[in-house]
């Protein structure tokens, strides 16, 4: 993970969201009463409790990967010279990596600091966002059903590759080099 340039626990973006949250809480309390307020609070608390182990696991995976994975391996598979293969490898990895945002971002951050190519990192995150099975199975399927989700995912298969291929020239145009934080 990029420990060199990380905002502290509270910066302006968090402050803004904190303000939004406070307003939303006040509206719910005034409009719907304390019963509804407590109901939302307790369901959020449950969600929070279930997410904690995932976040810890994600951080540990990110930390261990950045220590264990040799830089040469990162360079060869998903480095700046990895071409289309790197983007394909990253797309497959994004689709099969388990867990929520708390897994994918620490891992992607660790790879970025280790010199992985922009295109590969973008493909990894895009693939996780669009093709990740854990979200599709747990959340999307109950709402939309097999037919819709199946087609949605199938039609999205080329998209991480497109995003990865687009990211490379954009990063190059901005003069960025892989591995710089």
């Amino acid at each position, binding site marked *: *993970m*990029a420990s060199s340039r*990380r*905002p502290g*626990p509270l910066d302006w*973006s*968090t402050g*803004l*969201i904190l303000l939004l*949250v406070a307003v*939303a*809480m006040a509206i*719910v309390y005034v409009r719907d009463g304390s019963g*509804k307020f407590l109901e*939302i*609070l307790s369901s*959020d608390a449950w*969600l*929070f409790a279930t*997410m904690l*182990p995932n*976040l*810890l*696991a994600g*951080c*540990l995976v*990110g*930390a*261990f990967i950045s*220590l*264990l994975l040799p830089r040469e391996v990162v360079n060869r598979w998903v480095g700046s010279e990895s071409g289309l293969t790197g983007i394909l490898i990253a797309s497959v990895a994004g689709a099969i990596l388990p*867990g929520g*945002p*708390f*897994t994918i*971002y*620490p891992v*992607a*951050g660790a790879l970025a600091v280790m010199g992985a190519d*922009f295109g590969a990192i*973008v493909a990894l*995150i*895009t693939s996780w966002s*669009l093709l990740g099975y*854990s979200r599709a199975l*747990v959340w999307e399927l109950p*709402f939309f059903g097999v*037919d*819709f989700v199946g*087609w*949605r995912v199938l*039609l999205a298969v080329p*998209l991480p590759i*497109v*995003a990865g291929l*687009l990211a490379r020239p*954009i*990063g190059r145009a*901005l003069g*960025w080099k892989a591995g710089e934080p």
Partner: protein
Amino acid sequence: MTVAVVLFLWVIVIALGLVAIMRSRALFRSGFKAGAVDFLRLLPRLTIGVFGSGFIAEVMPQELIALWLGPDSGLAGTLIASAAGALTPGGPMIGFAIGVAALKSGASAPQVIAYVTAWALFALHRVFLWELPMMPARIVWLRVIASLPLPFLAAWIAMLAGRP
């Protein structure tokens, strides 16, 4: 299902931990410490994010967003659907719930696909609360820029395929 995903994740953690400890105890300790420090650093944001999403989702007019997604799957309709997706806050349930509500009230499938795709890629709260703290900022913005065409592409492919 959720349990299986969590278990699989911890199997990976344990496997990585074992590999580290076989190399050296110091390596294992520093990996564990780095992971724990990251975890503690992210905890305040997670708290705000999870507790906040529930309340923001409750206040947000979900029917209104579903209404934005009409039967029009032209460029303007897809643009509106993508913007709505980026602006939809809340946990994984909210975006899908709105998408299904829109589908039931007559929105076209390509538009709902654009909405779900945009929401999966750009939901602003996710970018600000989770992605930015965990990754180098410029990679986050590069990712957002490179993904801008994707909701349109997804809707277009769905239209070409005539599915779902």
